[in-house]
Each structure stands twice: as C-alpha cells, then as structure tokens.
C-alpha cells in the first residue's frame, strides 16, 4: 500500500522552496523539539518508533544513538548520502526533491544526540543534489533553523554538505568518515565503532538519508504512531526503487510489509509486454536473487531475510526470462572488482579472480571445473572475512545464482554461450 510520508508533495509542488515546504507543515518538528522537548525526549520517541536504518542494515536508529558515551567530547552526526548500490535511487529523490525534510531530520536528530556539527555526505555524482542541498541549508540558516541559538534556544547547529568523488566504498560508514577527514575511503578496523571513535575520533552517529527523513514525522506524531504503521517489527514506510524489465520503473513509497507482488505487478505495472519474471534482486546487485514463487514475501527487513535475501535499501532490479544469470553475475562482479578499495586480500584478489572466471564462462571459454571453482570462491570470499561487507556483497548474488540457475552456469562451462547473452544487451 502506498503511503506518502516522505514523498508527499513531490512532483506536485516545489518543496525545495522553504516557503512551500513550511506552508505544508515543514519545520514544525524543529519548532516542537526545540521549544517543547528535551533532547532525551526526542531520542525516546525515536526509540519508541523502532525506526530501523533504511541504508540497508535495519539497525534501530534509537539504539545506535544510545551507544554514544557521555564523556564531554564533541559529538557529530554524519548523513550517509553516498547512495551507490546499483539499483538504489531513493536517496537521490529525497535529496533533490525534498531537501528540507532531510535538513529538518538532521536538526531534530542532532538535537537529540547533542551534536552541534553535522555533515551531509553526498556521492560526488550528485552535482545537482549538492547544489540543491546547499541552497536548502542556506535557506534554513536564514530562517533561523540553523546556526547559533536556534529559535532563541541554547542549541546551535552547523551543517556542511560534503561531496564524495566516485567511490562505492564510502557508503560504508567508517570509510565515509575517512572520506570526510580528507583520506582515501578505506574502512576502519572495528571496534572501536563510530559511536565511540568516529569523526575526528569523537562520538559519531552515521545515519542514512531516508532514516533521518523519517524523524520529523516521528517528532510531530509521536513514536507510538510511527510504530503502528506497517510491520510491527519493521514499522514505517520504505521508498522502494524498482527498475529493470518492468513497465513503470520508479520510486514508490510503501507501507513496510507490503507484498513484493503488489510493488512489481501493481505499482511498477508488471513485467514488460510479452515476457515473464525470471528473478528479482531486491536489494540491488549485492543481494540474493528471489524467484517468482517468492512474490508474496512482505517487503520488510525480517520477512525478506527469512526469504533468504534482504530488504537492504530496497533497490529492486527485476529481470525477465531473457536475462542471462551468468551475465548478471559478471556485470555485478566487474562492479565490485572495480570498487574494492584494496585493503583486504579476499576482496581485493577474490573479486578480480571471480570476474575473470565469469568473463571466460560468459565468453564461451569456460572449463567444466569452473562451476565448482566459483562455488568454492563464494565461500572463500564471503562470510565476513573482510573489514567491511563489500567482499560479502560481491558474492551474495553469485552464491544464489549458482543454486537457482546452476544449469546455466554448467552450460556455459561446457562452452555454450548463453542463448540469452545477446538479448540481455539489447533488451
């Protein structure tokens, strides 16, 4: 079911204009939080809301906030807007079309955790998004929602929009912090986690764009209200980005727990004419494939995990029967081989090795033993052997495809190029 909590007004009015945003109730959460609530009360509402991280992990934001030690060091909030997972494009819409919602969410959340400095980290390719976000921050500052003594209170907050420069790995929170500190985006050894030693070695919260965009409505309506929307254990809405072989690709904000089938068949208009569904990668290129028999799975964190895949950031890529499972693996693996930061051996060496094997399979030069080789590489690279999940992501789809579509891999290994190979390119 569609419920427009974060996307209300997008496509109808220009929410980038602070006047328009305010006329629709914008910045009331800031007014309420700063005038009538203590930081602890704001944090308590977010806790009650059971707001789970929309960046993919689904970790409760309120709990993440509670890990900050109270030791007098400055605290920071960093917004993860490095949206880079192939298939995900919901953060870009929020940044470009509803920037003040994010600013408002950042103000409420920074107030709740006691941060006076926040960074909105946007991937470098978001040229327009960065310009829009900078304008929104300037408008909010002029209106008195940012800066010193906000709304006459003792609370001060400054926001900087910080641009990345083309590195998928910077979506990993510790790599993102390195990037803000002016370094190469290499993930850090954990522990210590960012809550204890994050930006400039100070207590830091890193939350996704969409997660923070949920906070204003929680402040306005209460955590209990939010907790009552959708799946009890994954409350709220989720903006699902759907692309690939569907009639109406786009972003659809759905109540958590909406069946996958409703998104694919109703909202996205079903599979393109004359074709049928083969598989869905529900959390982008790094997720385990799901098959047509799983279309009744509810779109929430727990149900998708129970179905053997994940909700992630809900970047769903839909493939019809013309799609070659081996080719999809090769496209994905080339991405990960390129984006591996090079720090951990299994990921750095493994992704390139897998890419090589898949390239020869896909090119009709495969050897019979390649299928077993791939299976063993999936086990050797995945399973948490690296400092960050990129290595795991790089073999998640492949592992699922080797189970679901083993016959296609075997056919390729015997020198038969896939009959779909030409079609997937011209589809």
């Amino acid at each position, binding site marked *: 079911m569609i419920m427009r909590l974060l996307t209300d007004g997008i496509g109808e009015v220009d929410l980038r204009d602070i006047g328009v945003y305010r006329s629709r109730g914008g910045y009331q959460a800031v007014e309420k939080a700063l005038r009538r609530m203590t930081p602890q009360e704001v944090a308590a509402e977010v806790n009650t809301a059971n707001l789970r991280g929309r960046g993919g992990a689904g970790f409760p934001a309120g709990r993440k906030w509670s890990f900050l030690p109270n030791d007098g060091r400055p605290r920071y909030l960093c917004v993860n807007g490095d949206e880079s997972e192939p298939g*995900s494009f919901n953060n870009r819409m929020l940044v470009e079309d509803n920037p003040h919602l994010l600013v408002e969410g950042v103000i409420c959340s920074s107030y709740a955790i006691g941060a006076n400095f926040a960074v909105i980290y946007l991937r470098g390719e978001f040229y327009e998004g960065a310009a829009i976000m900078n304008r929104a921050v300037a408008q909010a500052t002029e209106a008195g929602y940012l800066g010193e003594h906000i709304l006459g209170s003792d609370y001060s907050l400054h926001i900087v929009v910080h641009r990345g420069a083309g590195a998928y790995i910077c979506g990993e929170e510790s790599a993102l912090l390195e990037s803000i500190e002016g370094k190469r985006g290499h993930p850090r050894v954990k522990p210590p986690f960012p809550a204890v030693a994050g930006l400039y070695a100070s207590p830091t919260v890193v939350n996704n764009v969409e997660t923070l965009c949920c906070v204003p409505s929680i402040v306005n309506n209460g955590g209990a209200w939010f907790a009552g929307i959708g799946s009890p254990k994954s409350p709220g809405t989720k903006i699902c980005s759907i692309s690939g*072989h569907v009639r109406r690709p786009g972003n659809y904000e759905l109540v958590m727990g909406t069946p996958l089938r409703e998104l694919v068949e109703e909202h996205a208009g079903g599979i393109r004419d004359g074709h049928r569904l083969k598989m869905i990668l529900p959390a982008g290129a790094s997720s385990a494939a799901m098959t047509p028999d799983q279309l009744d799975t509810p779109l929430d964190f727990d149900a998708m995990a129970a179905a053997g895949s994940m909700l992630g950031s809900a970047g769903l890529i839909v493939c019809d029967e013309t799609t070659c499972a081996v080719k999809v693996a090769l496209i994905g693996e080339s991405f990960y081989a390129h984006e591996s930061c090079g720090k951990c051996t299994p990921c750095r060496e493994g992704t390139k090795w897998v890419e090589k094997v898949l390239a020869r399979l896909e090119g009709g030069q495969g050897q019979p033993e390649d299928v077993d080789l791939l299976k063993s590489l999936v086990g050797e690279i995945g399973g948490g052997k690296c400092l960050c999940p990129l290595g795991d992501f790089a073999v998640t789809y492949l592992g699922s495809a080797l189970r679901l579509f083993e016959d296609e891999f075997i056919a390729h290994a015997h020198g038969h190029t896939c009959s779909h190979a030409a079609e997937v390119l011209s589809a």
Partner: protein
Amino acid sequence: MVLDPAETKEMAARYPERRSLVLPLLWRAQERIGYVSDEAIDEIAAAADVPASEVSSVVTFYTMFRRSKPPAHRLQVCTSLSCAMAGADDLVAGLRAMPGCGERFSVETVECLAACDRAIAGLYNEGLVGPLDLAGSTKLVRDGAGVAGPAKAASDAAARAEGGDGR
C-alpha cells in the same frame, strides 16, 4: 595560484579540523581549471595541513578527480546492471565508433548513477541525463545539447506514478 585564499579560509571555518578540506578543495581546484594540477596539490596540502603525497594518493583513489584536462564534451554512460539490461554496452560501442570520439568528445563508462529508473542513465558533463538512446546521445555529444527525455520530467513522472495519479 589555483585556489582563492579568501575562499579557502572561508571553507576552513566550516570544519572543526582542517584536514577535512582535502576533498572540497580538490573539487574547487577541478572546477576552476578542469583538473587537479601539481600546483593545486601543493596548495591543498598546505591549506589542509597534510603531506602533498597524501593529497596525491587521495586524488588517485577517487575516480572523479582528474590529473589532466578532459574534452569539452564528456558523456559518461552507466553500465551497471539496470542500464546494462537496457543496452548500455551497445550504446557505448555505438558512440565510440563515431568520428571525433576521444578528441572533440569523450565517451566513458561509469558505475551506477542512482538513476536506474532512467536507464540508460548518463552524466553529460555535470548533468544527469536519461533515458539515453543512440540517436539522443549522438546529438548530445555532437551538439552539446538536446537530451532524450529531460531529466526533470522523468523524475516528476516517477513521482506522479508513486502517488497513483499518473497511472
């Protein structure tokens, strides 16, 4: 001098620590002269108070920073999954076969641009474009104008569909 010292000072005041200036100043240098020069690296190292060798290593880590001037017309085509499924590889091959490619304009491939609803998506200089087809992109790299499916219209269409009133 590549950077404007007054602007650098103003940017430094926004961050708690100076080393955070590395990426913003690299962007600024690239905006001013089109790429990151040796001179820019030295200036940034001084401004951010980090060794020049470290700034160099940052430049090479991030794919969007360039060490040489790019052609005036630059099209980057996304070849990640949704765009590949829409024929990105054929589009790139078609564009690269055009006379003038690599000289008057460049055609590069890029990883997912978070615009899969506009597959095949691309970046024309700094603007998001899509959906791209061969005719539209040919016109784009030749004339520097005319895009298949204006970016904003596509986004609005998606938003309307989301509300159910566009169906």
